[in-house]
């Protein structure tokens, strides 16, 4: 009864097509935004801002980008981290080389640069499918990172290839405390999430899903495969690019090309699989899970080891962490292959009837 749609009649198509057609969802999202913009900044500690919330938002954005490509348009990619790298280095260079460019414009330009590179590496998708394409995206992963280390101009001739990001000003105000950075990232992520939600509920998103579900049928009903797939690559890379710029500017402050490794790409892929492929909410849930699980294990395992007096050495604890992480991924895939987003949906369906199960 908590989550009941009965009694909410839609009398217009407009009402039926709004962003969140169910009232409880609407209220929930508003509450969440209020907490995010007001509650959290009031109470969270610096650790939460810089080590949990900012990376969570940045990774959610990157996962969202990958989800657009993989979840909605059906093109598996193992190169998300490379597009983040493009975004990070592009943002650095725009700040460095364009006098007085506003930081938000910088982020947009970073996204657009990544989108351009994304289109380039999306071109093979017109001929190559499935795992062949996935492996082919590794070419993007390795090639882009290599380029960033090889053209010193891109890192302003830093001898090591490491870049250190510039200060961020918006209307003359410097965003340098973790709280301010958090709010900046949150605003961008909320805006881009809304945009993503709008895209996937309109004909852009339907075209992507049509291509994903059955590309021949999609082309027969008039969808042009090439622009549709390339648009997915572009939008996805744009999101990853902005995420990369935020990763550099608001999270680490200093990045090197090697930081955007294949491992990072895999983490982002994990996020959408665990969270839910083809679900915007899933991108968030997955990012939270993948980010928090190692931290949780890191804290919990030594605690349990102490509690039960287990003779674990520090190294053993570290190994168990990796082992448990791998097991949990398998466990989740077995229990719910459609990810946390589906679990949430099932929960909602149960709540719809609760407390009267029939």
């Amino acid at each position, binding site marked *: 009864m908590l989550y009941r749609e009965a009694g909410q009649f839609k009398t217009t*198509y*407009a009402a039926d*097509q709004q962003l969140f057609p169910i009232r409880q969802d609407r209220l929930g999202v508003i509450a969440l935004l209020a907490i995010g913009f007001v509650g959290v900044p009031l109470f969270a500690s610096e650790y939460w801002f810089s080590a949990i919330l900012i990376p969570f938002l940045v990774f959610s954005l990157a996962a969202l980008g990958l989800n657009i490509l993989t979840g909605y348009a059906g093109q598996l990619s193992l190169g998300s981290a490379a597009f983040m790298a493009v975004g990070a280095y592009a943002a650095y260079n725009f700040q460095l080389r364009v006098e007085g460019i506003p930081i938000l414009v910088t982020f947009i330009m970073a996204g657009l640069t990544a989108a351009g590179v994304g289109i380039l590496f999306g071109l093979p998708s017109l001929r190559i499918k499935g795992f062949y394409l996935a492996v082919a995206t590794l070419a993007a992963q390795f090639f882009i990172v290599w380029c960033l280390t090889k053209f010193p101009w891109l890192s302003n001739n830093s001898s090591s290839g490491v870049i250190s990001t510039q200060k961020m000003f918006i209307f003359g105000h410097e965003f340098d405390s973790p709280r301010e950075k958090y709010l900046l990232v949150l605003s961008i992520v909320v805006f881009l999430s809304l*945009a*993503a939600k*709008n*895209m996937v509920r*309109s*004909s*852009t*998103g*339907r*075209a992507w*899903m*049509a291509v*994903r*579900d*059955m590309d*021949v*049928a*999609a*082309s*027969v*009903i*008039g*969808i*042009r*495969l090439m622009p549709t797939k390339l*648009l997915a690559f572009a*939008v996805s890379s744009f999101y990853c690019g902005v995420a990369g710029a935020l990763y550099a500017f608001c999270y680490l402050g200093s990045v090197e090309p090697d930081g955007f490794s294949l491992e990072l790409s895999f983490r982002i892929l994990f996020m959408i699989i665990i969270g839910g492929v*083809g679900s915007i909410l899933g991108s968030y849930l997955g990012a939270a899970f993948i980010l928090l699980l190692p931290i949780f294990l890191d804290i919990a395992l030594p605690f349990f080891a102490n509690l039960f007096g287990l003779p674990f050495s520090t190294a053993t604890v570290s190994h168990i962490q990796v082992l448990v992480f791998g097991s949990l991924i398998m466990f989740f895939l077995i229990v719910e292959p459609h990810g946390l987003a589906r679990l949430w949906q099932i929960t909602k369906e149960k709540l719809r009837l609760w407390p009267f199960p029939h």
Partner: protein
Amino acid sequence: MSKQIGDVILDLQNISLRFGGVKALTDISFNVREHEIRAIIGPNGAGKSSMLNVINGVYHPQEGKIVFRGAQREKMEPHMAARQNIARTFQNIALFKGMTVLDNIMTGRITKMKASFVEHALWFGRAKKEELEHRKKVEEVIDFLEIQHIRKTPVGRLPYGLQKRVELGRALAAEPSMLLLDEPMAGMNVEEKQDMCRFILDVNDQFGTTIVLIEHDMGVVMDISDRVVVLDYGKKIGDGVPDEVKNNEEVIKAYLGAGH
């Protein structure tokens, strides 16, 4: 029948199609007139589906000419057929399994939507207006096919017969001038077949849509089509009004075997 059958709108001349060394279609010619129901029949493997695939550009014949509405067609991609108002359904249902009925049918109108993805993303300009306009059209199709109750159901969960109906809906949503139906009644029970026949005739009648149809059920074919073309082993063996075809020697031979 009250409807007016018009001029030839699609003329296929000497079509031959090969896959590697396999000949799928050999030197086939026939035409389709405006507003008629044109059936293609033949035993399994006769090349019927290949024929439809040639018409809407999925396959490109090595030889032959296709004249559509008076213009000879160049080699083209499937999506261009859609832009020429040709819609179709598939033998093995080709719905978008991950989407709801409503969204599936909405995709049928994709060629008519003009808003760019930026407008969609920011939900301004044409995006919202279009979405509502087309939703209205789609609801008409939903009403027409009597599938209101499953509007928000993911198509993967629907029974076979309903999926077929949704697929027809997706094709109809495009408001096609020509509709290609590949075995629309395969695997249906009698009642479902009757429904489907009714929809096909209604479409033809109410909207004047030209229909090219592949069907195995002879009764249905003979009842509803205006003209029938018969294929066997990639060759045309008969063409004409149902009665004519029914009595064609070669057709009888192909269907009942040489021993007859």
